[in-house]
């Protein structure tokens, strides 16, 4: 594996909630992504996957804080930077496409104006003409007409807006792109279109992408590798084919079982009984223990370490430890 472009090492993030104390949203998370890769991050609501995106960009709300770990981007630990230094990385090195929102841009300003402001953050001396030609080309790449530039956000449909946001994210040609539930709020048809178009863009721009979603089908469509999160911790990380066909972690297995398949024998869709544990309470043992169908006695008292079953495959489960010794 080549030198990773982004390495998250043992990251922990907490939120202070009034009346509830400290909520551990992300705990001891480690993952890495190499240039050109597309890494998926899946999990249910509350798994901490979106917190991951905010933490990487250092955009946590004021009641959130990074309580440990490192985020190393091309050799620099982003967590040690001041907000001012961080600005150099924002959008130019790392860009985000958020979940579709009608208010993702200012509703009372024209789109070209907003784009112009964004590009001038890192290219302050760009002229209007240069900008316009760049913008038009970019829009064309995502399948939008240049008339979109003269419009206001509310005049565009959801799908067009998301394409616009993708175009905006590519405006500086970022090294790393994060898609944070980017297709979640779209209807299935639009979602399919955008995913297909994104694959083309990925090639054209040689993108390195992190795809955060709860939808395994999106991950299956786009990703090389996938990280499965639960309750703020990494459960399993591996190549997509391996995870989809031979998952090792009980949670991953249950997650996959809860998705209906188009082909193959018809089987009942299983949910996962139980609910997320209370993230404000410190925990002994594995975080999934109370819902795990294959739980062992030791799971209740000892949190499993990250077992590396193969160079590219990590499983945080005692069962995996029985197969191999950890590295």
């Amino acid at each position, binding site marked *: 594996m080549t030198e990773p472009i982004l390495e998250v090492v043992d990251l922990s993030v907490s939120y202070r909630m009034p009346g509830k104390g400290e909520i551990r949203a992300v705990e001891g998370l480690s993952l890495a992504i190499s240039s050109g890769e597309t890494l998926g991050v899946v999990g249910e609501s509350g798994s901490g996957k979106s917190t991951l995106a905010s933490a990487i960009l250092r955009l946590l709300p004021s009641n959130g804080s990074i309580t440990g770990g490192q985020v190393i981007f091309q050799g620099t630990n982003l967590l040690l930077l001041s907000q001012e230094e961080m600005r150099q990385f*924002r*959008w130019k090195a790392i860009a985000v496409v*958020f979940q579709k929102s009608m208010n993702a841009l*200012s*509703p*009372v*300003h024209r789109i070209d104006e907003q784009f112009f402001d964004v590009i001038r953050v890192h290219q302050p001396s760009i002229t209007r003409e240069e900008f316009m030609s760049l913008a038009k080309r970019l829009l064309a790449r995502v399948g939008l007409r240049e008339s979109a530039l003269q419009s*206001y956000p509310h005049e565009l449909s959801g799908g067009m807006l998301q394409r616009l946001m993708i175009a905006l994210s590519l405006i500086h040609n970022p090294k790393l792109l994060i898609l944070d539930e980017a297709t979640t709020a779209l209807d299935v048809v639009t979602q399919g279109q955008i995913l297909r178009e994104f694959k083309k863009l990925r090639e054209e721009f040689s993108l390195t992408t992190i795809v955060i979603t709860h939808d395994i089908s999106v991950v299956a469509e786009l990703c090389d590798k996938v990280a499965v999160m639960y309750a703020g911790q990494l459960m399993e990380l591996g190549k997509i084919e391996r995870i989809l066909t031979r998952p090792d972690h009980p949670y991953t297995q249950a997650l996959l079982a809860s998705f209906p398949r188009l082909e193959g024998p018809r089987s009942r869709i299983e949910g996962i009984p139980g609910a997320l544990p209370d993230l404000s309470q410190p925990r002994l043992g594995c975080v999934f223990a109370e819902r795990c169908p294959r739980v062992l006695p030791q799971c209740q008292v000892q949190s499993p370490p990250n077992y590396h079953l193969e160079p590219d495959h990590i499983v945080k489960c005692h069962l995996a430890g029985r197969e191999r010794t950890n590295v």
Partner: protein
Amino acid sequence: MGRFVLRRLGTMLLTIFVVLFINFALIHLAPGDPIRILSGLDNPSEEMIQNLRERYGLDKPWTIQFLTYLKQLAHGDLGRSIINDQPVGPQIFEKLTATLVLTLTATIAAFVLGTVLGTFSAFHYRSKLDAILSFFAYLFYSMPSFWLGLMLMLVFASWLKILPTSGMVSLREQQQGLGYVLDVVRHLILPSTTLALVYAPVYYRITRASVIQTLDEDFVTTFLATGLSKSQILRKYVLRNAILPTVTMLGLHLGYVVTGAALVEIVFAWPGMGRMMLDAVFRRDYPLLTGIYLMISVSVAIAIFITDIIYSVLDPRIRYS
């Protein structure tokens, strides 16, 4: 956009028409003989009765009367005041200037004060300063304007003697030019401060709530992620989005600029429409009253119309509704 303007215009004209009708209806539905009301006397002379009957067409069906009324209005005839038998129109305009000076100053002061403090509070949401400011906003908002005026007058005019008690100009010396202006300003301070203190909390609350809500909008997150500086996000994007409700309030307020100060004017003996209104009320000078009411209603309708237009310029989403 043009259709939008036309529709708003239509509503405005409709409102004015309704106001006219209410004006007219009130006098004819009130208990008592309209002639007695119009003449202000219990035993008007036969001549006066005839005079009024003719002028207002009181023996004709009320539909005709209403049309007569409208026709008179079209000629700018608002009737004659009972108290001094002068035409109503010119009297009103005379006092109008004084009222406008007071209320415009106060409204602008309130707007600036409330909006600035409200924005400040929003940025320091839940801090001690925010809590203190919010409390004072409640406090002043709860004060009757006339009482606050009295108290301020007591402290600054009677006890400290640094500001004049009442009136718009000093009665002792007649000033000219710059001296006159300064004199008016000195007299303006207490009444306009009173009004501004009572109005400002509204702007404060609206601005504060709006800014807090805007800071929570998704585009703020988007822009922060793009590396845009906080001050730029604030100045350009947050403010323009957050200012909309405040502008609406200001527009509405300006419409009431003609009426809102009556109580304070009376306390400070400001020679505006307040005193005139009160006298008209007590002397049952109905023509004068309806004239005033008409003018107020028209100015409100116009102000609302203009506010709607300005709002639609600021917020492109509205133009197509």
